[in-house]
């Protein structure tokens, strides 16, 4: 770096571009933008501070900031909701943090083409409050639905709980304005307008500029696909006396081809045991209940009723016990809020300890779910033997799509973060690498949802991508010759000569 971001000329130029009010240099301003919910030892918090924060109000301002940074070789880290679990929004080399939350306006609502165009700092729940008066929804529905923002969903290529019905972020975002590391603004997506859903003209660049974790620039304005607000929702929960039956049942449900099917979730026996042990919101089931399955259907009432009857029959024939309407409705509603529920876990001796929830995900084919589950619990068990700061909170598997091919597979680990020291952090990083290795050994992907650029898992990205990783390096070098965009992520320093 030839200059630091805080040198006077940089600060002066940024203030000119954005106005004083939108250039923040205070320690608290920087500390509060140096974190995401993924665990990190709190004693090392200050290692990840940006030098300053800017809050642009337009695409043009973002472009000016990037031009300046590119000219002066200052690192830039984009941050939207900061709810990601792979540290995408966390600065590793200081620099300018571009916080795009002010870009939260609805620019256009096109009822005839069923699209809307929004600033990428908008939250989907807030957007849906506005769309509800038109009986429309934007159905991008992650666990962070109340707080994640559209730009972060693009930057991480997010996953949606009801993606089996409506698709995931990459399907729902039609196009967007994107500021390249040089400061040049391009429009990415099908067609010359904003609202084309399918073209076969030229390279399909949209996917390239989604999921790059801020290493290829910043999306500022997006056009989104809208759907009729579902008239009905049905979300049956079923209980099973063993995992094998539940696993068989979830496969049958996902493969049934019911058009209103929005997703299914499988809870393994560790998850049920954990809920029984420590989740205040869990409605106790008899101890014979070892695994759970739920499904969700969205659509018009007549469609949902017919599809629901079919799934109920399939489940009954597979030996499931329906848990009733009250639990079904309540628990599904709660799925959206089951993000940070438990305030505690347990040490090995059973002592309650204040812990927070951390979730590791992978994409795994249906046929490999049982063996991945065993291998992952073994890793969690090793962590637990190593230290009382870790607790195994069980696994979920969520359908990725309507055909039942693969699942977002998640293991939840309770971590006593106040006690996370260098030794336990090293154990955690090792465990993350091992979890990722299991996913790859089973033909899966390191992540369905979060991305894979954190310490531990990131080491295996070249293995997952194979020859594609070299292409990734070439693209990075071509688009960001000075490595200013989110440097240090995804091993992309290798594009500039760092050893692999």
């Amino acid at each position, binding site marked *: 770096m030839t200059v630091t971001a805080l040198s006077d000329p940089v600060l002066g130029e940024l203030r000119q571009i954005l106005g004083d009010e939108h250039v923040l240099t205070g320690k608290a301003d920087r500390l509060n933008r140096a974190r995401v919910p993924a665990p990190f030892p*709190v004693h090392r918090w200050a290692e990840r501070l940006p030098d300053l924060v800017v*809050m642009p109000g337009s695409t043009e301002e973002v472009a000016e900031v990037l031009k300046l940074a590119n000219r002066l070789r200052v690192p830039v880290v984009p941050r939207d909701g900061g709810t990601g679990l792979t540290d995408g929004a966390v600065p590793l080399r200081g620099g300018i943090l571009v916080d795009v939350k002010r870009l939260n306006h609805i620019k256009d609502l096109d009822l005839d083409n069923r699209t809307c165009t929004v600033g990428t700092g908008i939250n989907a729940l807030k957007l849906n409050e506005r769309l509800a008066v038109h009986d429309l929804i934007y159905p991008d529905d992650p666990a962070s639905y109340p707080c994640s923002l559209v730009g972060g969903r693009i930057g991480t290529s997010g996953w949606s709980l009801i993606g089996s019905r409506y698709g995931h972020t990459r399907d729902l975002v039609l196009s967007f304005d994107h500021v390249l590391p040089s400061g040049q603004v391009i429009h990415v997506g099908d067609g010359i307008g904003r609202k084309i859903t399918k073209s076969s003209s030229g390279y399909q660049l949209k996917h390239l500029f989604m999921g790059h974790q801020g290493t290829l620039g910043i999306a500022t304005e997006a056009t989104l696909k809208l759907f009729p607000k579902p008239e009905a929702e049905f979300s049956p929960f079923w209980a099973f006396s063993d995992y094998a039956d539940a696993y068989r049942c979830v496969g049958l449900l996902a493969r049934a081809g019911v058009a209103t099917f929005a997703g299914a979730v499988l809870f393994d026996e560790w998850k049920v045991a954990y809920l029984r042990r420590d989740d205040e919101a869990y409605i106790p089931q008899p101890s014979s209940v070892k695994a759970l399955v739920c499904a969700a259907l969205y659509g018009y009432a007549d469609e949902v009723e017919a599809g629901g009857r079919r799934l109920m029959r399939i489940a009954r024939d597979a030996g499931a016990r329906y848990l009733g309407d009250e639990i079904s409705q309540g628990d599904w509603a709660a799925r959206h*809020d089951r993000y940070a529920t438990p305030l505690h876990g347990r040490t090995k001796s059973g002592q309650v300890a204040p812990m927070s929830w951390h979730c590791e995900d992978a994409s795994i084919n249906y046929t490999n779910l049982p063996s991945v589950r065993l291998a992952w619990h073994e890793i969690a068990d090793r962590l637990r033997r190593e230290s009382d700061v870790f607790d195994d909170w069980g696994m979920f598997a969520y359908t990725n799509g309507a055909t039942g091919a693969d699942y977002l597979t998640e293991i939840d680990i309770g971590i006593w973060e106040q006690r996370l020291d260098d030794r336990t952090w090293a154990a955690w990083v090792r465990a993350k690498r091992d979890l990722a290795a299991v996913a790859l050994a089973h033909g899966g992907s390191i992540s369905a949802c979060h991305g894979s650029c954190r310490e531990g898992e990131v080491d295996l990205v070249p293995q997952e991508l194979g020859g594609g990783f070299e292409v990734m390096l070439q693209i990075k070098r071509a688009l960001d010759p000075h490595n200013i965009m989110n440097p240090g992520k995804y091993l992309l320093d290798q594009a500039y000569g760092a050893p692999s």
Partner: protein
Amino acid sequence: MPDADKRFAEEWRDAAYNCFSSGHKFCREVCPVMQVTRNESWSPTAFHANVVAMEKGELEISDVAADYVNCTGCGACELRCPNSLFTGDFYRFRTRTVDLVKAARALAVSQDVHQDAWRRWNAETDERSHEPVTEAAGQERVRDWAEGLELAIGGETILFVDCEAAFHRTSVPRAVARMLNLAGYKFGLMNEQWCCGGPAAEMGYEEQARRFARHNLDDWRASGVRRVLVLDPHDYITFTEDYPKYFGDDYDIEIVLVVELLAELVREGRLTPHIPVERSVTYHDPCRLNKRKGVWREPRELLRAIPGLTFTDVDRVTQWSYCSGGGGGLPIEKPELTARISASRIDKAAELGVDTLVSACPWSERPLSEAGRARSIDVVDLFELLATSLGVAP
């Protein structure tokens, strides 16, 4: 790190970690300040994370005191916090961001870190025994609003009128007094009423707040007061949360919320609204009633009892993310921010096509009225409206 910082960090550490470690920020999009500024440094999450940073020696209160100004104390963040949502029902746990903000402000003041406008405001309040909400606000004018109503002084039940209503929104207490008289409900006025002390406590001037509280309690005791009627939601918080904390078991005064009392009088048939009020209205849930005390039924009950009204309701949960911007001392230190929040609230009313926004909190009505003028929306108090329908317009 100064000792006081350390004690503060120790007291709030576990609560702060509960938020910090989850870091999920459901609070952010319901926070009125965050919604208009989009500045994460002023989010409930940041208010907790700062405590962790203080404990680690990364920050001192002087670094962040100005950030803690940016809170109206509405409590939306506490309701939306996943930690409250899921353990609340079972263990009555609630994330306590509002208390944390108050404690941080008090810590700042205790270390002589002041916000200019707050310091002036509290100094003037101390001089006048009342908040300087108008030029005239002062001890000798505290009962001017009641002129001609011939209300008694003292008695077992008194009506406590907050500073904003007593000196600025005088039609509100007049409406309340006339309705209670109409129902034959016996009450008097306080002997020597001072400001409740709540605003000083909210801005961090705790010693002053306690001194004012002591005066009021002593005055009630001296004149045999057993029951205090409260028309202002902010006073209601002060009398039911701060006073018990100051006085412990000694505090045996019954606090009655006027909106609940009036709803009861209407239910019992002792008051029957009968004069049609031809307005198209929506209701603004005052934060301290809806979000902090769970009081949202009675105001709607009263509105539905008024003939002639066209009432377009917005449910209480949607209104978790609404606020007038008038609370927590924000309009004193950052009036421009209050104006943005109230303009955003008025926008939501305007979308409903109503001509009137009804509130039940005097402190919300000044900023909302100012914002309403720009959109041709009238802001009236529920009690004014009810009194009109009862034929005892203020």
